């Protein structure tokens, strides 16, 4: 029977459909992997409650394991502890930046309800910190939109959560 280590390796091949450079492991959404009585159990935590990628991700995990010959798979959702961008791997953050998306800063003080806070976000293209927030909400639930005041490029920022 397959080992847990091998399952983690297979999961590395399952990508986030909305940010295809990131694997589900880079994202930090796999909470646990287990094997018992020839059955594979995987526990996944959602990024955002309404993220439409979640159903696709669960299906992709199943399909990838079937492709490798494992049919008996149970995928469970776990809400607590709630997912945070601090669980994203360093490798994942580097891949995001190379893809043109500013990676999330460490959680720090920016996830609070106080108004008009300006988070320092580095431009993924020219590395300038001279950037400004365009909108707290972007093309997907997990992103906000920034603009670089030096290279003038507008870019997505994976917001801290």
């Amino acid at each position, binding site marked *: 029977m397959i080992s847990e280590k091998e399952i983690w390796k297979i999961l590395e091949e399952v990508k986030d459909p909305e940010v295809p450079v990131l694997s589900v492991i880079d994202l930090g959404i796999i909470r646990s992997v287990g094997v018992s009585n020839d059955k594979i159990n995987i526990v996944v935590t959602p990024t*955002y409650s*309404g993220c439409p990628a979640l159903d696709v991700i669960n299906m992709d995990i199943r399909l990838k394991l079937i492709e490798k010959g494992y049919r008996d798979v149970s995928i469970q959702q776990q*809400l*607590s502890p709630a997912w945070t961008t601090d669980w994203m791997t360093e490798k994942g953050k580097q891949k995001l930046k190379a893809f043109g998306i500013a990676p999330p800063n460490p959680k720090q003080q920016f996830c609070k*309800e106080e*108004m008009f806070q300006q988070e320092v976000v580095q431009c993924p293209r020219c590395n300038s910190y001279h950037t400004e927030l365009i909108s*707290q*909400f972007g093309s997907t*639930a997990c992103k906000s939109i920034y603009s670089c005041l030096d290279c003038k490029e507008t870019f997505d920022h994976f*917001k801290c959560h």
Partner: protein
Amino acid sequence: MNTNLFIYTLHLADNALILAQRNAEWTGHGPVLEQDIAITNISLDLLGQARNLYQYAASLYNHFNKEEKTAVDQYIPHPWKEYNRELQEDDLAFLRTEHQFLNLLITELPKGDWAQSILRQFFFSAFQFYLYRQLQNNNDAQLAAIAEKSVKEVTYHLRWSSEWVIRLGDGTKESNHRINEALKDQWMFTGEMFQPVSYELIDVSLLKDDWMKKVEAVFSEATLEVPKQTWIQNGGKEGRHTEHLGYLLAEMQYLQRAYPNSVW
């Protein structure tokens, strides 16, 4: 009692679903592209929260004994009873009638102009923020987990809507006029949030101080005055709604009613 947990979960889910549906009316109609995307992102978060809550309510019901099922029968959608299968999240969202919905009246009010949608979002997000913050410590583990997850999303909603209330209130003569008109229309719908009903698992009246402090802080930046008026509209939490809810449901539920059990 378990039946109260079921009804309360439905109430929380209905709040999120109805406001998600309302905000979704802005799709393609926002004042600028970024804000069109912002308010529909908020819709999506609320819809996700509603799904988690309806899934939980459905699983509670499916595990009920006969007596408990009878006790909550008035909330169960009639068409589902013919289906001979377990209750699912979609049945609760798409097959209940107006009187079975337990959402706050403020969530069903028409989207109005941008000032009206913004002000309603601010009032509601501030309420949800303090509510979820408390619910994440609830004895019921699943309700607490949903609240813990949701409060992170609501934090963004509250920040965004607070900033917009200030922008409109302390903006131009026109924007100030519009948000004051919205305030006149909506204030009487805010009291219902803090008026306890029998099935609630927490004492919502205790949330009012924090909520009011937030409103006062934002209003003072926005050059708006907290109305003195104390008359409140209520009934939504017990299934008595404004005429607006029926129209909303007619559109939202059309597909499942015309083509029962169809899937995406």
